């Protein structure tokens, strides 16, 4: 019994040591990804669009560390450029949907009555489609292109943010210092800007951080379906598709983009958890884990 307790203790310390690098690792990963995305042209060994049929599907070599794809394009370079697509879609998607949600949520919370109901209905409607199906349909209407994908993602995710904003605004609105500010005749907009935004956005940032990863995953999914960014733009999803088509000949073509996707998704959810610790350290680790997981499910499937 006592022996076991000792065992426990060692691991408590272990966990303590282990948890902190885990936290910052998120930041590190994201920074690295950003670096790759920004300096892709500088660090990519080859031009990712430069086709070279003669050595298509070539093995791993010194010139092509990850081999080449079905058109003889350098896989590593395409992965670097894919990072650009992924991060662009992820971050733009999140910020646009965050903005839409923020505006609509606030309007709903402030105007109340019919407008509120209407916006709520809109949110509920959007929420009652499975994410990817909604995106598929939107894409099928507006046609696939990087901006349209961002748009579709934004529309799809807007509702979650919108509802959160609305709820929090309503509660914050009732708090005394806001009331006081209003009583003192501060202008609505100024109140919104100074107090409410501050109190509402904080928690959303965590959600947002989480969602970047899942939007990246979704973009990959769309590109995999052939509804993603148009050629020849590099995207992990499209690379996965090529890998899928050439599975029997060159399995590695699937492995590389899979790793990239995992790193990105994991990186951003770790970042989000770090954010959470930063913003409210009170939350217990276990709960955080589950929370991040919840957000993940909402977008992965």
């Amino acid at each position, binding site marked *: 019994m006592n022996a076991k307790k000792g065992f426990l203790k060692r691991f408590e310390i272990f966990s303590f040591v282990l948890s902190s690098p885990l936290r910052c690792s998120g930041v590190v990963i994201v920074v690295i990804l950003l670096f790759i995305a920004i300096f892709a042209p500088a660090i990519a060994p080859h031009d990712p*669009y*430069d*086709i070279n*049929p*003669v050595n*298509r*599907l070539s093995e791993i070599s010194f010139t092509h560390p990850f081999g080449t794809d*079905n*058109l*003889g394009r350098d896989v590593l370079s395409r992965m670097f450029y894919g990072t650009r697509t992924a991060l662009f879609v992820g971050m733009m998607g999140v910020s646009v949907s965050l903005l839409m949600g923020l505006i609509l949520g606030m309007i709903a919370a402030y105007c109340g009555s019919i407008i509120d109901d209407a916006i709520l209905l809109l949110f509920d409607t959007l929420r009652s489609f499975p994410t990817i199906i909604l995106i598929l349909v939107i894409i099928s209407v507006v*046609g*696939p*292109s990087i901006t349209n994908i961002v748009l579709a993602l934004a529309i799809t995710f807007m509702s979650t943010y919108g509802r959160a904003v609305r709820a929090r605004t309503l509660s914050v609105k009732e708090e005394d210092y806001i009331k006081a500010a209003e009583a003192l005749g501060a202008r609505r907009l100024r109140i919104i800007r100074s107090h409410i935004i501050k109190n509402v956005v904080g928690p959303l940032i965590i959600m947002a951080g989480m969602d970047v990863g899942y939007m990246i995953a979704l973009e990959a999914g769309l590109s995999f379906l*052939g*509804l*993603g*960014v*148009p*050629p*020849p733009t590099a995207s992990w999803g499209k690379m996965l598709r090529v890998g*899928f*088509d*050439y*599975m*029997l*000949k060159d399995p590695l073509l699937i492995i590389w983009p899979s790793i990239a996707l995992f790193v990105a998704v994991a990186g951003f959810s770790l970042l989000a958890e770090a954010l959470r610790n930063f913003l409210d350290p009170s939350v217990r680790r276990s709960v955080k884990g589950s929370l991040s997981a919840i957000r993940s499910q909402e977008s992965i499937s």
Partner: protein
Amino acid sequence: MKVRSLRKKIVLVTLVTIIGVSMVLVSSGQCEELSELRVGRVGTLAKTLDPNIMSSWGITVPIKSAVFEGLLRYNPDTMEVEPCLAERWETSKDGKELTFYLRKGVHFHKGFGELTAEDVKATHDRWFEAKKWGLMDAIRWIPPLNRIEVVDKYTVKFYLEYADYTLVSSTVPMFFGYVTSKKALDEHGPEGIKTHAVGTGPYELEEWVPMQKLVLKRFPDYWAKKPWFDKVSFISFGSYHAAGLALKAGELDIASVRPEDVDIYEADPNLDVNVFQPAGFCWIGFNVQASPMDDIRVRKAIRYAVDVDEILQAKWGGVVEDPRKLRANSILSPSTVLGFWKDAPVYELDLQRSRKLLAEAGYPDGFTVVMPAPLHYGGEPEIGVVVQSQLKKVGINVKIPVLELEAFREEHFRETGRYPMFVESWHMAPFPEQQLCWFTSPQVETWNEMKWSNLRYDELLKKAAGEPDPTKRSEYYIEMQRLMDEDVVAIWIEYQLDAKAWRTDIDAKFMSSGWEVIQEMKGK
């Protein structure tokens, strides 16, 4: 006491499950009763089973030709025309009257009674109200048909406006000739007939579950030799390698495989592989009505800027030792019965001339053009990307929209100027008139994707039809191809190869075009 018994139960259950699982794993591999033929297909199985509508040939021909029969048919080995539902036929001197003497005692599937002249008439009368039956795709096929007359129960007579010798040689034995039951037509109507196939063939339709499988079963009172298999199921797969793996695992007997992958299957001792050259073609088409492609110099310039050999290399590199051999220089492939243009000009890469032509046309530093490359028989998107990078060299910036085939066609025909260039590939029956007919003026709204109309071309097609002598006809066809070449309506890339792999314990049979001849297949 109770407890122990319960423990027993638990043990029992676990045992059962273990056994069950292992059984599953075992049963995974060989679960084949040879009297069922399992054919793997990639993508759709068939869009419609109406005997006379043709869409996605390569996929539906084998199915339809197992279910339906025409008055005449091809001998799968010699491709000679031979009697089928008609025991014999006569052509009048002037070639304007065709009389078919029907075989007696031929029965339709599903108890739709015996085949009579009435059925033939009913089936083919549909051409006169083609729009109602959605047959307009093929409306060109029997222009000279004036009327059909039922002489007696077993004799039917076709009256033509002018002589058309291709009718017997290619049209009647193909889709047009397929006969379905009058009763069935009345019963099911234009919508229903798409899913209710009633023919006289050796197999009848058992079930068709979209996206899954299409099952045929042996037709008990078939008039001729009964087929070997009791059951033929066409199973839909999402990707070529899915089908391929299923084949390797013994879940399939025959599967279409990507010609690029044949080496994989050749390696497998249980499999036979063959690459066929169907009368298909893959090309970069110019929409001659859309700017800037309405300027022939631009089209020429592009023809000089596109390196077809590199495209072939990109597709076949590492599979075929010399991809150049696969190059197509004109529309008709060597495998078409006649009309192959042996000495068609071969255009090599020549960037200087290309740039010069562009400059003349007023595009010294190129332009931007939208070029869809929808996936059809495989490889189109890749070809698109290759062309994209090739044209960059002459300053032409190609945008490839992400577009599915159907969407492309819909938009292409809705908005004349939308897509000045495109990559397409078709599978066809190996008969020149059936391949050339799509690019006539009347087809501009429906299938003539180049939107190219050349009256001489139309006229030649008609001339050829009226020409009894095959060699002369062949010359006409070559002439037509020359016209296409002069007007630079397309850059021909290759004759779509088609590869089939099948298990060695199947005695498989294919047409030269690679279409399975289901009814003739046997198990060993």
